[in-house]
């Protein structure tokens, strides 16, 4: 069981986190016709917007209530009302996802009450547009929490409550924010190959996959439809992916009685086996031949790839569920998790991370813990540490702004695990150092060189 080490520094150095409202907006972006709205000063929105654009290379709908000094002192309910109205009139969204920021939460504003009043006052004008609130102050949590809170808010605000007649083939899937566009697409294919009908919330594969529409659309185009969110209660089964999705899954259970199964990770042979078995038992269908073939391919990739993983020291910095996903992947192929850094101590998954300890911290912590590691695994901001330490960096998570196509990279189920093995093995092969007489000299100072080079003499 990993020990959780809390942050003791006062100055965070090179933040690992992106903010909680950004995570909530991210989830709203997975809904069709959505417009996320930050309740705060315009800078909050501008920074998040720029970061989204840098990651996705897409126009991102995101608006602000533009709180100024007066609103900060006297209250910002008017700003919220005006913003909702302007958005409704200008962009005609099907969903406005309000994400609070530190500014409005520090004021202690009753945003839920404000929104209830706005809805009550303007029932007619707001017809056809759902307004949902996620309380996501920046001083708490990070992307995962924000994402989970937004999904919970959508279920609690939109899904029809009560036990409903269940559709035997319908599966509700609640993916965590560490799943990419490619992951979601691939998962849908997998589920459909069993004859099941998945409803995925949020579905970023429909909205952030980089298509070129034939007209200008101010909101998202594609993603989960509001109608599908409303009808989630007719699903036979709910599958949540990632520990942070337990809360929305529980909310759905409480509201509609739809039972859930939670997968902490879908990367790796065993977790995928469990997932595929579950689909097979729900659908009553046999596992299709091409899925079996993918499994065989993964077995082969593990056999070919494990040479490159054994004994390698890996330093990972990521949000809790992604940290768990990657750490178990690397550990499962024989690597050692030399450093594990994450954003928040709230997640129950952290103690299961296969590392001696998990540091709550930033990329400054990663940089000092990763000395002597063979690979850094984090988002693009790890590039400075990678340069200084001269350790290769594998870019994962959010944001990835200095490489193209991160949203189309697959990392789950048989095929994604296979691809991940190849990617890592190739990084190691590209950064191989040829043996030198000095490094192999049996009379060398072993204590020092043991630290530096693991193979081929590691363990002696």
């Amino acid at each position, binding site marked *: 069981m990993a020990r959780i080490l809390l942050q003791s520094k006062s100055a965070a150095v*090179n933040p690992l986190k992106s903010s909680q409202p950004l995570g909530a907006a991210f989830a709203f972006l997975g809904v069709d016709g959505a417009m996320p709205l930050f309740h705060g000063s315009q*800078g909050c929105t501008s920074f998040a917007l720029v970061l989204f654009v840098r990651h996705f290379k897409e126009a991102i709908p995101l608006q602000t209530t533009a709180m100024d000094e007066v609103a900060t002192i006297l209250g910002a309910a008017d700003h919220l009302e005006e913003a909702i109205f302007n958005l409704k009139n200008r962009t005609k969204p099907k969903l406005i996802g309000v994400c609070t920021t530190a500014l409005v939460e520090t004021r202690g504003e009753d945003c839920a009450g404000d929104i209830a009043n706005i809805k009550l006052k303007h029932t007619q004008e707001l017809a056809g547009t759902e307004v949902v609130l996620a309380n996501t102050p920046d001083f708490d949590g990070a992307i995962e929490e924000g994402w989970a809170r937004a999904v919970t808010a959508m279920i609690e605000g939109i899904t029809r409550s009560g036990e409903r007649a269940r559709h035997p083939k319908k599966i509700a899937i609640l993916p965590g924010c560490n799943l990419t566009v490619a992951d979601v697409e691939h998962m849908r294919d997998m589920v459909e190959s069993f004859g099941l009908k998945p409803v995925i919330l949020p579905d970023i594969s429909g909205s952030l996959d980089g298509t070129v529409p034939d007209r200008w659309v101010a909101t998202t185009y594609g993603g989960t439809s509001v109608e599908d969110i409303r009808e989630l209660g007719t699903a036979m089964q709910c599958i949540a992916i990632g520990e942070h999705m337990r809360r929305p899954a529980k909310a759905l259970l409480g509201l509609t009685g739809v039972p859930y199964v939670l997968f902490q990770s879908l990367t790796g042979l065993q977790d995928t086996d469990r997932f595929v078995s579950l689909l097979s038992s729900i659908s009553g269908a046999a596992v299709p031949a091409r899925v079996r073939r993918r499994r065989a391919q993964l077995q082969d990739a593990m056999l070919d790839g494990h040479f490159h993983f054994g004994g390698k020291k890996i330093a990972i910095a990521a949000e809790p569920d992604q940290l768990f996903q990657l750490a178990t992947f690397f550990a499962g192929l024989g690597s050692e998790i030399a450093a594990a850094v994450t954003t928040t101590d709230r997640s129950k998954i952290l103690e299961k991370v296969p590392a001696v300890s998990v540091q709550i911290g930033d990329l400054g912590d990663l940089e000092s813990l990763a000395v002597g590691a063979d690979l850094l695994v984090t988002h693009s901001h790890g590039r400075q540490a990678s340069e200084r330490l001269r350790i290769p960096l594998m870019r994962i998570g959010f944001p990835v702004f200095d490489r193209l196509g991160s949203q189309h990279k697959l990392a789950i189920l048989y095929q994604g695990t296979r691809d991940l093995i190849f990617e890592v093995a190739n990084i190691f092969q590209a950064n191989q150092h040829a043996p030198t007489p000095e490094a192999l000299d049996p009379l060398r100072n072993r204590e020092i060189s043991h630290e530096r080079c693991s193979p081929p003499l590691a363990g002696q």
Partner: protein
Amino acid sequence: MSSLSAKIKDAFDEPACDKNRGKDAKPRKEGCSKSLTPGAAAGGCAFDGAKIVLQPITDVAHLVHAPLACEGNSWDNRGAVSSGPTLWRTSFTTDLTELDLVMGQGERKLFKAIREIKHTYAPPAIFVYSTCVTALIGDDIEAVCKRATEKFGLAVVPINAPGLAGSKNLGNKLAAEALLDHVIGTVEPDDPGPYDINILGEFNLSGEFWLVKPLLDRLGIRVRACIPGDARYRDIASAHRARAAMMVCSTALISLARKMEERWDIPFFEGSFYGISDTSQALRNLVRLLVRKGADPEILERTETLIAQQEAIAWKKLESYRQRLQGKRVLLNTGGVKSWSVVHALMEIGIEIVGTSVKKSTVQDKERIKQVLKHDKHMFESMAARELYAMLSEHRADIMLSGGRTQFIALKAKTPWLDINQERQHPYAGYDGMVELVRQIDLAIHNPIWSQVRQPAPWDCQPDLIGELPCTRNETAYLFDEFACATAHEC
């Protein structure tokens, strides 16, 4: 906040600003800050603006006193380049948590953070930025900075520009005020000379100032401080001993230029290193100011020689693009100084300007644009995303030059696009920079992808193809011709 609102008022009382002077007493008092429309606002906040101006100072530790988002969502995101120190790219924030806020530990945490940075990195200065939340809870960053300065013996400078105070532009001005109050004039240089100048508002994006600096070196002009691009703290602290200054980005730092003239008698002019004749004019103005301040007038002639030489080379290089770019229609969608600086050189080689935004431009900027464009119907304040998309998808321009914000409007309309704002990849300043800009325009317009991506899918293009199969012997060949013909043009 009262001192802050006094500062804001002062920042907007700008006699050197035409826009401001053109107003009556009452609207002038209200300042330039337009109130924002909730749900229809775009752009950064005052903190963003302050950080943009100061962050490129390379050896300073920039510490943001805030909950995570202000710094965590925005660090290491701009294209300024350093020739030495890398500390400015390291991000520091107090990352205030709920507990910090509830328990009122903000100031204490800030002080400790300053101490940690001092011990670990030993920078010449630490800049401390206030933000919305820390302003709201009333953290007195000025007091903390003062105490830290005394205790640690290094400059700890408060930057009081919380986001809720207003726009990015206001933040630019507040950053300039902080430099005037706490930095400039605090260090006496031991080597002042008659050829020392300051460049204000140059950010060294993609290293583009290095396309200009060798020209100044050749003339024997020393850049005492380039604020902020590739600057060192000491350079800025001793900037008050320069003899002349050039102000590059018109709206951002005009108050800095004007106040430095008032306080230290450093004359300045507003110029640009974008475009060929503008670069030449900037060099001329610089040496004229230096001569006025006592430099040897022989420099005037040397400058003319250098200009003649460099212009000839640049025009010759540009001429080779004339044939490829003549008659191409450019839409400029960027504010301020860039709009008019590049227009002249583009038109010189036969490029047509079909529109330019003047949202951030001053009255002076607009006059200049009018002069080069001949009629002002090509000027627009700002264009809604939908209109812009319509204009581009109807191919009313061959390329749009703009910033990242409108990038995807152009790309989704399948129109060539070139970044000329802060995230750009190429340096465009000086003579070589103008050639580079034209080269990039050429590369963008003539990339072979455009004809490919504009092609509709063949099955969308010829729905009746199968229904109208001609019954001739040579039907496959005929079909192929028909098909090739149809796809070669847009349907």
